[in-house]
């Protein structure tokens, strides 16, 4: 059984992602660098809230060290919502703050002319892979990730908002799989176990 580690920034609803992962596999919550145990197979960076606060907490808690170590070892990292956005180089939400810069690209404000902002509720995600059927997931965000390499986008809403990003060992969800009922749990399960 795979062991899941969830990075707790202290600003997130850590309980719902923990409950969701526990229903799938062995799960621990990591509250600080010292608690980090290297037997973890899948690292989850969940997120809600402001980009600058998220980045500050990651550095204060030395989570950036854990994430980089995971990345170098090519172990699986899952970013959710803000947790995905923090993996990029920069964000419109916090102009002077550098992100973790693991995925080349930036976080942009969603254009109100193209879709109702904030995204709040359920949207159909169109997946590019034949293995994944188009399904509904729960979103709650006003910003979206725009990777330079568009091939990394494996699913989107209405061909506009990137929803699922994959770069080697990194998986990023703009939506909340832990809040997306069976569709979300199934997707999380596949990523954790494969």
């Amino acid at each position: 059984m795979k062991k899941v580690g969830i990075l707790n920034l202290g600003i997130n609803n850590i309980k719902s992602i923990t409950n969701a992962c526990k229903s799938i596999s062995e799960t621990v919550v990591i509250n600080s660098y010292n608690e980090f145990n290297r037997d973890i197979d899948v690292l989850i960076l969940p997120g809600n809230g402001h980009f600058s606060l998220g980045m500050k907490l990651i550095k204060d808690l030395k989570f950036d060290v854990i994430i980089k170590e995971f990345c170098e070892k090519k172990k699986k990292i899952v970013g959710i919502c803000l947790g995905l956005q923090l993996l990029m180089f920069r964000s419109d939400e916090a102009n002077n703050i550098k992100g973790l810069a693991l995925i080349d690209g930036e976080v942009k404000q969603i254009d109100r002319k193209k879709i109702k902002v904030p995204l709040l509720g359920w949207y159909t995600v169109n997946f590019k892979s034949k293995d994944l059927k188009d399904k509904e997931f729960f979103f709650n965000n006003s910003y979206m990730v725009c990777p330079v390499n568009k091939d990394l986008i494996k699913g989107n809403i209405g061909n506009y908002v990137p929803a699922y990003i994959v770069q080697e060992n990194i998986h990023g969800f703009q939506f909340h799989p832990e809040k997306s009922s069976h569709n979300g749990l199934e997707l999380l399960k596949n990523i954790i176990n494969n």
Partner: protein
Amino acid sequence: MKIEKIRIIPKLEIKNEFLIKGVRFEGLRKIGNPVDFANKYFKDGADQINIIDIVASLYNRDNLYEIVNKITEQVFIPVCVGGGIKSIEHIKALLECGADRVIVNSEALRNIKFIDQIVQTFGSQFLTVSIEAKKIGNDYYCMMDHGRENSNKTLSDWIKQLNKYNVGEIIINSIDNDGIENGFDFELLNIVSNEEFNCPKVINGGAGNFNHFINVLEKYDIDGFSIATALHFNKFSIKELKEFLISKKVNINPL
């Protein structure tokens, strides 16, 4: 078809450890265990669950925390919680219980700066403002403390004021139609539709049959429906409602 899906949101009103329901916010009846009802609605395909503790501000809040804790262990859709929220500490405690969003009414009417405080601490996506509107004379007024106190603010004035703040979502409850199952409050919807909104809006109060939903959707731009009485008393199930809405080509989450 618009890309946003209409949400179906069961509303659980809680008093002490019980799910209760009244008519026009009065004559409260005990219905059962809120945890069981939340589970049932989750399995039935609800898009979100709203929980309002109607006495949390009067008595202690421990009952509410315990209920939210139990619900979020098994319910993997957004769970939004309100009732007597007056401080950032209340909100942090709810977050720890697994709440995804808080619902604030009375304290926002008393002290609008509370909205800024919440948004700056947790982000706007974390805040739903609930409006409990009641017709008095020729106008709708926003009520506080589960309908007991009049804020003396009219519905349209309050919406205009809220629009200057970064609110994540607004739920508009019709006290006059609450628990009546006679359809949504069109007079109220007319006022609402004359206002600009920069966030999603959900309406509550009056759902009694499937056509009530279609009647609203034909005329108004609404992002979700909150339902209590009709679901609690088994008038219809969420699954049946969703099947009907799909047959009418309404864009919903088919789960």
